[in-house]
């Protein structure tokens, strides 16, 4: 199949970018979306031109490093699928595809389709952990956890930190990302002692970055490659308010 690509090119954070048009012929439908971009880059490099920079690593849908807006949708048209797991059979011959970086003030563009998502790391650093040093752990089976609690914690723990939730939110809110970690931890007995400080600090850190607020449009859940539920946001809000009432500290 032949396709037309309109791709965002931007030299660095301070430059203004623009969409450039490229055509690619004989695209194999079994190619992954990123392999399609590899092919385009190969052609560009062969002509001595700069390759289009984009983030990726595992190409298995698990590291969360890839991600771009494809025709306005984070990670493209296939539901609950990362960009690297999207294949060209999801597109048609002759189609024009527009590719842009994840757009959010908190995710500045580094070059072309690469963005800086280090705000996520700072949110985790503010409290997304159990404060246990190496060597302090008790015997594992001394902390039994009911099967359904473990599974529910897991449903939140599956977040890969790609940032699609932020990119699809009209407010560029990081609520789903932050809530997933808080919700995972409140489901488990480990680290319960610090639940109040954790939620307070993480929410404050989230608010101090350039993310917007959640207005419950729920777009994030629709585009999340791991289909993480927005109900975790409700839980985060509950925990946050509870911490305000009962702990009122941190």
């Amino acid at each position, binding site marked *: 199949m032949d396709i037309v690509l309109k791709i965002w090119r931007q*030299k*660095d954070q301070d430059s203004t970018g623009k969409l450039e048009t490229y055509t690619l012929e004989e695209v*194999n439908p*079994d*190619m*992954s979306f990123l*392999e399609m971009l*590899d*092919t385009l880059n*190969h052609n560009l*490099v062969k002509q*001595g*031109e700069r*390759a289009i*920079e984009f983030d990726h*690593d*595992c*190409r*298995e*849908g*698990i*590291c*969360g*490093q890839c991600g771009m807006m494809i025709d306005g949708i984070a990670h493209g048209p296939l539901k609950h*699928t990362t960009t690297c*797991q999207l*294949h060209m059979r999801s597109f048609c011959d002759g189609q024009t595809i527009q590719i842009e970086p994840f757009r959010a003030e908190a995710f500045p563009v580094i070059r072309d389709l*690469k963005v*800086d*998502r*280090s705000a996520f*790391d700072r949110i*985790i*650093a*503010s409290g*997304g*952990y*159990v*404060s*246990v*040093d*190496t*060597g302090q*752990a*008790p015997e*594992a*089976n001394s*902390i*039994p*956890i*009911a*099967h359904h609690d*473990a599974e529910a*914690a897991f449903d939140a*723990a599956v977040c*890969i*930190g790609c940032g699609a939730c932020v990119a699809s939110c009209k407010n560029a809110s990081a609520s789903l990302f932050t809530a997933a970690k808080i919700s*995972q931890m409140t489901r*488990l007995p*480990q680290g319960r002692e610090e639940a109040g400080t954790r939620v307070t600090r993480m929410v404050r850190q989230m608010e101090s970055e350039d993310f917007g607020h959640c207005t419950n449009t729920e777009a994030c859940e629709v585009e999340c490659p791991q289909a993480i539920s927005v109900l975790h946001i409700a839980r985060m809000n509950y925990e946050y308010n509870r911490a305000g009432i009962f702990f009122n500290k941190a």
Partner: protein
Amino acid sequence: MSRILEVRIPDGPLPEKWSNYKAKARLVSPNNRKKLDVIVVGTGLAGASAAASLAEMGYNVKSFCFQDSPRRAHSVAAQGGVNASKNYRNDGDNVFRFFYDTIKGGDFRSREANVYRLAECSASLIDQAVAQGVPFAREYGGYLRNRSFGGVQVSRTFYARGQTGQQLLLGAYQALMRQVSAKKVTLYARHEMLDLVVIDGRARGIIARNLDTGQTERHAAHAVVLATGGFGKIYYLSTLAMGCNASAIWRAHKKGAFMANPSWTQIHPTCLPQSGAYQSKLTLMSESLRNDGRIWVPLQHDDTRAPGAIPEEERDYYLERKYPSFGNLAPRDIASRAAKEQIDAGKGVGPLKNAVYLDFSKAIGEYGKSTITERYGNLFTMYKKITGIDAYREPMKISPAAHFSMGGLWVDYDLMTSVPGLFAIGEANFSDHGANRLGANSLLQACVDGYFVLPYTLQNYLADEIRTPRFDPDSTPFIEVERAVKAQLQQFTDCRGSKTADEFHRELGRELYDKCGLLRSGEGLRNAIRNIRELREAFRHDLLVPGHTDEVNSELEKAGRVADYMEIAELMCIDALHREESCGAHFREEYQTAEGEARRDDERFCYSAAWQWTGNPSEPVLHKEPLVFETITPTVRSYK
């Protein structure tokens, strides 16, 4: 000249060695720890766990990774599980059995004392991970669940859905970020280590390139830890992430660290086959599929019928035929080799005839579709996503792919390389897996190295360093190494040849896979060495890297990695050529039994081969570490 390597295994009977070591290891007092700096390169399970643990102890840690967040290290990709001998199932598991399974799985080519320590520390890892909140699978009563994994008779594998690596890594990453927030760790994401700085024979720092700005940076410390993972990506097509590389360990090798058994690579039997020339990586399908899937090829050559149209009597279930007692669950090296034999014999299936079938029809018939969905639903979905094929109706197509580096930097019992002050942990070192790694043992090794071993052994080393003042990264030794790094980068962009780094990499990968992959022969390896030398020459003159060194430039990053692969590939072939025996993943066609099984030669080759860099990639010097088995007796590893 060859010398016997100093391994420094502690005294005492095997089960007491590690306790004896810990009892005698030197300590650094808490107020002195804050005067000492440690660089940890890598934030996978090994690097993140080490950096977090060292920071908790009070050392100042600088942590580096090339991804944009430490949480994305390739440890995330591990699906299957992590082994630990907890004996929760009361099925006769214990530390000795774990140790023995691992030594045997490695075809008696690993060091007894290290493997025993791995088994001994395994139980604590599960405690640690659970305390961090890692959501392992649970029974309804709330206790931890186990399953069994290839090559052993007990159930000692802990797992977290299909995301064991991801969940363990998040635990370690969160511990690391906690120390970032405590200001004991400084994080350098999107930084690639490009060289090691050695002063007066000791590792004192690194040169790293900031991948966002293109600037090189000099970083000094009292010790350097490499936790940079495996280099299976050298084969181009592999189950590794796109950025996985050998550059950190190879450049340390060129500064004096020996490389051990570099050619021992595990080729995983159940990966998705290559579908076209554009292919960038091969996805691993969990090995657990072999519990219910049957592997077969058509009996006829070049059979183009659809799988469903091939009657039962015209199929060859070759693993069940050749290995009746293990059947489809034969160990990885054996299953991979058998698949290659069928493919090479022209019986491969799929458009490129490069795959074999993994068929679930019998299991679906026996247990019903819903049971199979419950067991493997997510894998069937993933298969469909990638191939567009519904594996409930039609067999999967699988083929072998490069997966895990048993070889790596040589380390002593302390996990220190042959350069004092330079340590290597996780997949980057060569230590515990011998010539073949058992499934679910390497997440364990990465974690044990980082959480439980290095904090003792590195401290033992640092005890001598408390009077060493901080090194000045602006001093001549640092500036000189940085200059050489910059010159090489400049050379890549100035070359303006006609071939991209990927083109060179693909060619190199094909050569290695054919001649230094599943099957090796003296003739093939000699031939590969000639071809690699030519390719390396061509790379020097004909590389094309557009753009500049002082900006984001992924083509430049690739060029540096491929330059190192060009040299390490030759060493792999030299290593494989010198070892005139077959063991584990290393199968030399000349050294097999009448039934076509590996023939080990304990008389001549019961050692680890540690190679020293001499300045010429074609002339490494070999040092031997004899493997002394005091507790067990090597036997023939048979799965018939």
